[in-house]
């Protein structure tokens, strides 16, 4: 059985072979490990990995499976599962105006029809007492402001549509 787990931009591939109830051998890169495991509770697993005993805490979250080992928590997602979501669109460069975290819109600085420069401030969102200015990813014209002040917004949600200026390489609207 092969697992491909996404962690941020990286994929961890595990070739897993079950060895009886509660055990498996896994190959990760050139490393091979013998694992035995038992579920302690819904969120707690006991592992023995090459003789060392480890407690792992696991919970499903909207961003993938959160797994804590030794005080270190990682978000892992099955790459093949539908909607395995890249944690970051950084590879292509951010092209949409969307908040980095769940937040509240506190200020809107542009209006429909307004021309904006790349990097120009568009709106301010606030989360947990920290204000964040969202800026234009490229030069263009604001075709639509999709939110109002006081509105709750979330990552991926496009807050402002911008029609790129002719010189912009990216095709189409930022959406």
């Amino acid at each position, binding site marked *: 059985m092969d*697992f491909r*787990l996404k*962690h941020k931009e990286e994929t*961890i591939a*595990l070739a*897993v072979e*079950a060895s009886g109830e*509660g055990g*498996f051998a*896994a190959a*990760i890169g050139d*490393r091979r*490990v013998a*694992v035995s*495991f*038992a*579920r302690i509770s*819904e*969120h*707690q*697993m006991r*592992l023995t*990995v090459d003789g060392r005993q*480890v407690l*792992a*805490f*696991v*919970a*499903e*979250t*909207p961003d993938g*499976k*959160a*797994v*804590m*080992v*030794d*005080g*270190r*928590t*990682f978000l*892992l997602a099955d790459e093949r599962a539908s909607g395995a979501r890249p944690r970051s669109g950084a590879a292509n460069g951010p092209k949409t105006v969307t908040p*980095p*975290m*769940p*937040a*509240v819109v506190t200020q809107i600085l542009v209006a429909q029809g307004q021309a904006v420069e790349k990097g120009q401030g568009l709106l301010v969102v606030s*989360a*947990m*007492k*920290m204000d*964040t200015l969202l800026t234009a990813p490229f030069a263009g014209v604001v075709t639509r402001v999709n939110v109002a002040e*006081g509105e*709750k917004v979330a990552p991926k949600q496009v807050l402002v549509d911008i029609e790129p200026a002719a010189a912009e390489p990216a095709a189409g609207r930022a959406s």
Partner: protein
Amino acid sequence: MFKKILIANRGEIAVRIMRTCKEMGIATVAVYSDADQQALHALEADEAVAIGPSEPSQSYLDIERIVAAVKQTGAEAVHPGYGFLAENADFAARCEREGIVFIGPPARVIRNLGDKIIARQIMQKGGVPIIPGMLETAQNPAAWLVHAEQIGFPLLIKAAAGGGGKGMRIVHHPGELAEACQAAAREAAAAFGDGTVYLEKFLPKSRHVEIQILADGQGHTIHLFERECSIQRRHQKIIEETPSPALTPALRAAMGRAAVAAARAAGYVNAGTVEFILDPEGRFYFLEVNTRLQVEHPITEMITGLDLVRHQIEIAAGRPLTLTQEEVHGRGHAIECRIYAEDPAQNFMPSPGRIAFLREPTGPGVRNDCGVYAGFEVPVEYDPILSKLVVHAETRELATRRMIRALASYAVLGVQTPIDFLLDVLASAPFQAGETYTDFIATHFADWSPDRKVLELAAIACVADAMAPKGRPAGRASEAAAHPGPWRTLNHWRL
């Protein structure tokens, strides 16, 4: 003593205050906004009153609604916690007018100390060393320049009404001064409704050391030693400890005396904190007074064995402080780590969301003042503090090890936390050497990224979790009912 207290706050500090109230036999009233209907503080109180929408200005910061909740429930006193209305002189004054006991200093004291220029004047008069700089504001660029040159560069522009870095600018050259003053004033005006700024000497390699004080209404003031709070991100403390690795007994005594003098100069009553900047030569300067219970008060409780909230309530009830300075002893070493919902790998960006799983650290010398629980949705509207993990041990080294053990056993799944970052800070050579200056994170951890050494282990756990059935372990095979037969106890063993 009061029969009922309303806690005008939320989260861990509201829960912590309620615990002391319960131990004192005082009924508690929580207030909660729409976002906090199922918040821990609202659950733990004897009564809980809805005070409005999630937006802080319409709930926790709304004086009218808080006062109405006090009247509706018949509470005799209000504990403001920290943040929100805790240092709002108008709120304290309103309580005074309404006959509600405000658990904190008098409104007049809050107002004076809330204006940094007035506070500096008071301290100078009281003989407390202040940072070299202005004692009033200035009106024109020429006047600024005169002051600046007296003080010397680099210097710091600060807002009189300020806090949290707003309206603050470091200026290195005379040429930058005028524009920086104007920008700072604009920012301060926008943030506080007051654009007054002033200049202070900038002390680059310094520590933030504060002294806890307790003053009763009868003129008796003592201090409870220091807290070192130099490790900050975004001007917000993240690790605090006591004793400070930088203080000698003589310096501790001197700073304690200065803090008591500061409290006396200000006419202080109740618990408060006098913040100082300590330079590498051991000179200390008054920074400000926090006129409330400090977030990091638990480390003082750990080393002194005192319950600061109880002392606050007793002082507010008019009781004399019977503790003398000689009776207060610090013992061992305490460290606090603030567990925020934030992502240290992304510049400590907030990370609200649902706590999917929570496992708190426990054990000897471990205290976790926690304001959330598994299943709770951490709101986007408020401060990101989830809990304060505090440890106490015999020495700084042992406390550090204890904190590392506690952090490593703390699972918060569903939101990001700085737990792994804190593990790395605690294990670092500069921390262990006590080189805790206010630039600590910028100097040593600017490029921090999460340790990946157990990532593969986490991936293995992920696979194991997918392979292990989720069903509960079956109950015992035995039958359930208990039909007592005829029996009698034969013997027993003792441990």
